């Protein structure tokens, strides 16, 4: 009784100095921005704890946690690129077919006997090129991101089919196989690659002038322009980043499935958008982190893995993953 009355009288918004701990926690959890940053972490911990409690012997094994990290690595990289475009209030709907386009160029180079590093490079360049086209059309011609990248989704997947003649190219390479299934200290190589990209992206976004400009352009393009920031350059740059990362992720995809597939994998796109929203990046631009979407990518894969491990029928999995995405988006109201 005493405690409750104390709790209800103590916190006052003006007397911020003498806020006790509970009061501070309360005002924190009432702040919508706190939730946009931390909900994904809470949800991730909850999902791990939930499946860990239901199936400790199956879910919480090194083998299985390793699987989750492997599964999350490609979505994490794509989500990083997507975060950059969304931070400028844009969106890149072409990521899945950009990745396919990168994979197909990789596959062509590989079948023509190019060394592996050149294959990786050409795949990344192919993705960068698609991103550059996206950025130039969006920024120079001032056309809606949604429409341009939706068009590019089709263009890039068409280009991938034309280049590959619709045929998968088998890529069997010892080093790629090691990349796909190897690990060090139980951390899979694929996740290490993804994590390096996440850390670099975090540094670029929060510790460079370019990063500040990205936030400025996303937050208020007019003031950004008034401050002398080239909105066009920043816009082009974020799509180049998204395209390059999608092209690079093609290498990881090829390492996992052992071939360059000509048909686009649309789950990649849906996953990246879901991760960005769950990760607390505002769809209106100017607000967000890199680690949020990264944790969200882990969360989505943990959810999918956990449901499979405990044997939830496939139909209910579609339902539950969709519900989690909508529910979290409803909780994280980042609109201004």
């Amino acid at each position, binding site marked *: 009784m005493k405690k409750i009355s104390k709790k209800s009288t103590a916190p006052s918004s003006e007397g911020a100095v003498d806020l006790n701990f509970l009061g501070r926690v309360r005002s924190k959890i009432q702040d919508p921005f706190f939730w946009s940053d931390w909900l994904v972490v809470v949800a991730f911990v909850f999902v791990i704890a939930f499946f860990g409690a239901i199936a400790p012997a*199956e879910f919480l*094994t090194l*083998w*299985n946690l390793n*699987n989750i990290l*492997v*599964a999350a690595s*490609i979505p994490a990289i794509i989500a990083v690129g997507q975060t950059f475009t969304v931070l400028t209030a844009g969106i890149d709907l072409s990521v899945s077919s950009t990745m396919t386009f990168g994979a197909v160029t990789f596959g062509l180079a590989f079948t023509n006997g190019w060394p592996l590093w050149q294959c990786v490079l050409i795949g990344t360049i192919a993705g960068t090129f698609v991103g550059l086209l996206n950025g130039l059309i969006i920024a120079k011609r001032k056309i809606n991101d949604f429409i341009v990248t939706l068009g590019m989704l089709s263009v890039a997947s068409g280009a991938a*089919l034309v280049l*590959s*003649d*619709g*045929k*998968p190219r*088998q890529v*069997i390479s010892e080093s790629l*196989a090691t990349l*796909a*299934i190897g690990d060090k200290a139980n951390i899979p190589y694929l996740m290490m690659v993804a994590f390096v990209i996440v850390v670099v992206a975090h540094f670029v976004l929060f510790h460079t002038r370019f990063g500040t400009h990205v936030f400025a352009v996303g937050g208020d393009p007019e003031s950004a322009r008034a401050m002398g920031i080239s909105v066009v350059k920043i816009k082009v740059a974020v799509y180049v980043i998204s395209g390059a990362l999608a092209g690079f992720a093609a290498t990881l*995809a090829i390492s*996992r*499935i*052992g*071939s360059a*597939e*000509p*048909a*686009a*994998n*649309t*789950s*990649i796109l*849906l996953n990246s958008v879901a991760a960005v929203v769950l990760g607390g990046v505002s769809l209106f631009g100017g607000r967000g982190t890199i680690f949020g979407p990264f944790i969200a990518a882990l969360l989505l*894969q943990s959810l*999918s*893995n956990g449901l*499979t*491990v405990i*044997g939830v*029928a*496939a*139909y209910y*999995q*579609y339902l539950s*993953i969709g519900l989690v995405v909508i529910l979290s988006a409803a909780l994280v109201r980042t609109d201004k």
Partner: protein
Amino acid sequence: MKLNRFVKVALVAVASSSLLIAGTTTSTAATKKLKSIRVAAVVKGLDNPFFIGIKEGIEETALKYGVYANVQAAPGLNDDIGQANKLDSLAGQNYDCYIVIPISSNNLSQAIGKITKKKKTVINIDSPVDAASLKAAGGKITSFAGTDNFAAGKAGGEKMVAAIGAGKKIGLIAGLAGNVTSAARVDGFKAGAVGATFVGPVNADWDTTKALDAANAMITANKDLAGFFAANDQMAQGVGKAIKAAGLKIPVYGVDGIADALNEVKAGSITATISQYPYVMGQMGVEACIIAAQGGKVPAQTITPYYIIDSANITAALTNKSTRGYFPNQTPPGTYTNPYTKLIKKN
């Protein structure tokens, strides 16, 4: 004293229970009881009735023998990596056997390699896993059960030429670009339709509407088309609509034998469907798993049956109903060989 007694009781309990466990494990190692066999399956997207048919076959056969089955599907239509993730998630679990249908011929090879390392059985049904990529990943497939798509297409080609006569022009509608199944069916049809000339194949991505559009375009450009072959039933339905709209009376053959297609064969808007029996594939997959778990010798490869269903045998086909009705043709309206059933030990 009290504590001591408690400890003693606990010790006895632990000892006896571990004995019990030891006892059961040794006995199952010799001949695995049906009830203790656990099967996991990863199929393709369940947005296609064909794979629902396979799922049904797996689940009902498991139920019949009393084994446990967990059927999972790829999260999306072309989600090759997502499907590999699913198999990875199941690979670490306590299953005796894994039934797989890869989305592309390569995408599950590495996951299968991991399962082989754990000395578990993998049974491949429907679409074959590529041998080279499987070898590179160190994977092993104990048994394959699937349709010979080339032979099924070829039978369709022969039948159509017999019906319309040689030297005619036939339109070809294929599935997704680069899809092995689609290519085998179309190539088989061409090999069977001796003396015919072909328009296409045009890729309609297994989709009814896209096939309708493609067939419309082909009819407009080629007034002398004498027939159509579509690499699956959903596309054949689209072609059937296009033929009707153009006021033509030419045959269209599909492949698969899905519920809607059988109804349309009865109604006459599709001429024939070269029926496959996904239910039988699922059934054979589970049976192969049981044989392997019981330590028996599993047949390495089995060709599952296909039947051409047209106006002559549609009534028989339609009476052969599934309990859940997704793929009405559970088993063919005739005889077929199943080398697995007789090898299972009932215990």
